[in-house]
């Protein structure tokens, strides 16, 4: 899409939003709909898939600018063609739009080493519910000019702003990926995680639980001699039974994304307990990224009604009422944790 056409489309969205007292709305910004249910009756979808295109990809500065409706896979493909990958390691096969990825605030399992998804976005442009322009950040890595709306709006799920354009950080494509795995009873997970914590952090750590047994998986970016040395070091650290396996490219996206299930949040310590508990249940299944506190499980947790976790807090509430007093953007107020992925 040319800059001119993009500007026209954005102006159109602005007109729709600022039509005060009009018959339409509230609106729900939407990408490809891979991660959201269709809007309920009375809520109109504001589909952004037409606002699509990579406007600039700068191989030297390691940054790209794309319109929010651009499919993530298209962006990833264009980056891969010049040997780059979207941070934090967002591989091909992710699905959805760039705006949807950003607005759903997806947590990256690579966060402890690479930073969260919100750390990879350098700048954002968009519109508030009343059609006022939002701009934050830009194409440089360090930027403390004005409020950090780039981070604030990451995870805002269409309730605070319509995202139109994003500046995203890139890095060199890993030549291949390897993982160090160890199978053990669920009761041993704590010991394995403690052993891992004493070693340099791998790119990501994942635990798969099935029928009382767990597989602890540490992902390492391969291709360089130092990566193999690192893998050997982790293998030794994890103890007898640990193995080094390669992760084919097409397996990387499923490795990094949690499969379907009930979403739960807990600390590392909390997850150790939870896995031990689920391990005693014959149908206990879980996929956990312990270092970022997120996992999906087959069974709802016994305590803490997760539905009660609100979407944002006091700050979000105040900003929403200031930016969108007429409520033109639909406030889903839907709980994040119970959401089912895929």
């Amino acid at each position: 899409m040319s800059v001119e056409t993009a500007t026209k489309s954005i102006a159109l969205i602005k007109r729709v939003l600022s039509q005060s007292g009009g018959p339409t709305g509230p609106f729900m910004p939407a990408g490809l709909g891979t991660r959201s249910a269709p809007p309920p009756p009375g809520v109109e979808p504001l589909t952004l898939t037409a606002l699509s295109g990579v406007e600039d990809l700068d191989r030297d500065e390691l940054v790209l600018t794309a319109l929010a409706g651009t499919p993530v896979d298209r962006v990833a493909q264009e980056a891969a063609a010049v040997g780059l990958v979207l941070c934090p390691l967002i591989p091909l096969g992710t699905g959805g739009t760039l705006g949807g990825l950003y607005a759903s605030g997806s947590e990256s399992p690579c966060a402890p080493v690479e930073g969260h998804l919100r750390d990879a976005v350098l700048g954002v442009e968009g519109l508030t519910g009343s059609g006022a322009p939002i701009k934050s950040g830009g194409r440089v890595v360090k930027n403390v000019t004005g409020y950090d709306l780039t981070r604030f709006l990451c995870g805002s799920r269409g309730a605070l702003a319509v995202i139109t354009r994003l500046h995203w950080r890139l890095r060199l494509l890993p030549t291949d990926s390897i993982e160090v795995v160890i199978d053990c009873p669920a009761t041993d997970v704590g010991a394995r995680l403690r052993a891992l914590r004493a070693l340099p952090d791998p790119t990501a750590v994942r635990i798969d639980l099935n029928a009382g047994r767990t597989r602890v998986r540490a992902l390492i970016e391969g291709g360089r001699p130092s990566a193999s040395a690192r893998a050997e070091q982790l293998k030794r650290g994890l103890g007898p039974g640990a193995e080094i396996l390669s992760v084919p490219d097409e397996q990387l996206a499923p490795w990094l994304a949690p499969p379907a299930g009930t979403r739960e949040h807990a600390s590392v310590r909390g997850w150790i307990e939870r896995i031990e508990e689920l391990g005693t249940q014959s149908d206990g299944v879980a996929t956990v990224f312990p270092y970022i506190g997120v996992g999906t499980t087959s069974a709802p947790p016994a305590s803490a009604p997760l539905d009660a976790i609100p979407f944002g807090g006091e700050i979000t509430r105040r900003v929403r009422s200031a930016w969108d007093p007429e409520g033109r953007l639909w406030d889903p107020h839907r709980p994040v944790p119970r959401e089912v992925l895929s």
Partner: protein
Amino acid sequence: MPGRSDAALFKTLARILPRTRIITDSGERSLYDTDGLALYRGVPGAVLLLENAEEVIAAVRACHHHEVPFVPRGAGTGLSGGAVPLDEAWILDVTGMDRIIEIDPLESLARIEPGVVNLDLDRAASDYGLRYAPDPSSQRACTLGGNIAENSGGPHCFRHGMTTRHILALEVVLPDGTLTSLGSRSGATAGPDERGLFVGSEGTLGIAIEATVALIRRPEQVRTFLASFSSLAASCRAVSRIIASGARPAALEILDRLTIAAVEASVFRAGYPTDAEAVLLVEGEGSPAEIEEETAHVRAACSAEGALTFEEADDLEARTRLWRGRKGAFGAMGRVARDLYVLDGVVPRRALADVIEKIAAIGKKYELILSNVFHAGDGNLHPNISFDARDPEQTTRVLAAGAEILELCVAAGGTLSGEHGIGIEKRDHMGLVFTELELETQTRLRDAIDPRGLSNPGKVFPGGRSCVEAGHRGPGHAARVERIIG
């Protein structure tokens, strides 16, 4: 509401705080009239020395009730006038809240109060083989509260990211006294990243009273490299080559000729070659195998750009010596002139050499002594102007040159600040980056959180009221700078 009443506020607070922790004496108040920038000054109506969360909440509620503006304050090392009180705002000094509440090695985090000094946290973490990554040059004095409010950086933020990346959760007192929790122990957020909004908000959205911060493992091995070049442009090109090679150094810093000379003539002497136009300081960290890979990349890049000298240091003593010059650079500039104006602009990496050349021309035009120390990997420039703030005519030229340099950075595709914040210093330049409507969206946000405009008013946004005087430093300043660099 009856409007602002300092007397009523004093009465309320005298019931809560011991008299010794409410500073009203004009001499003592004037110790708080500036920050590390020293170009702006304003005497606070009073200073409150707060020691715990309950006191902060009570003080903010009272300020809100009596409509008295307030300024959160840490160590006062800020470089954009952020902690300078305007309109006789009261200072809420939280340096007394300096407890490290918890360090949890399994979760790799620490829970701290805002007055903890950056380096103290790092030292405490080292007992567990961990570290706190952001390392501003002021880390011996600045507080985590100030770091959070400014989203501070440091040399090692090139690889590890700025303060915001290391803040997992915050307890914040909003400007009306409401206590709210942002983020979570894992750093995940349910919905918008309120944590991310607060970081870098420069004291305008309330006061952080507790933070949960991420700690990372100390590297197995560290190697520091020093390369010297016959032109600044060559040193900048070497940086781009290193990044393009796939190396991931922790730090990439450049010092120019004038800075090298000042450092070498000072107590921070580091053995930098004084005949070079620039030195590039690189730090690699990781496993021994990673270090060898980094070394090959760094060596090749520097050699391709015709480095005059190339030095590697593995042992702590030699590395400390190489860093001494960089860490002491601002202090060393004290030899050149009485005062130093440290600017903070960002440009795309490829524009570095060109912009620095243009900055030199601006220095010439205004007849000023201008040197450069910068975070080259991030394109974050620190043009330093040496001057005498007692001379108002010189100060006017300094400010005019500063404004032109900022315009230059923005025109090159960069921005006004990479780590020091906007404060008072750059608020009137915000129009270079944002349209009026875009700024209005931000001020609406601020007004929504602080409808009475009490938390650090007059900062960040243009047109703030001020009773600022340029060219004066408060009596406390010299002592503070000594503490940082000594």
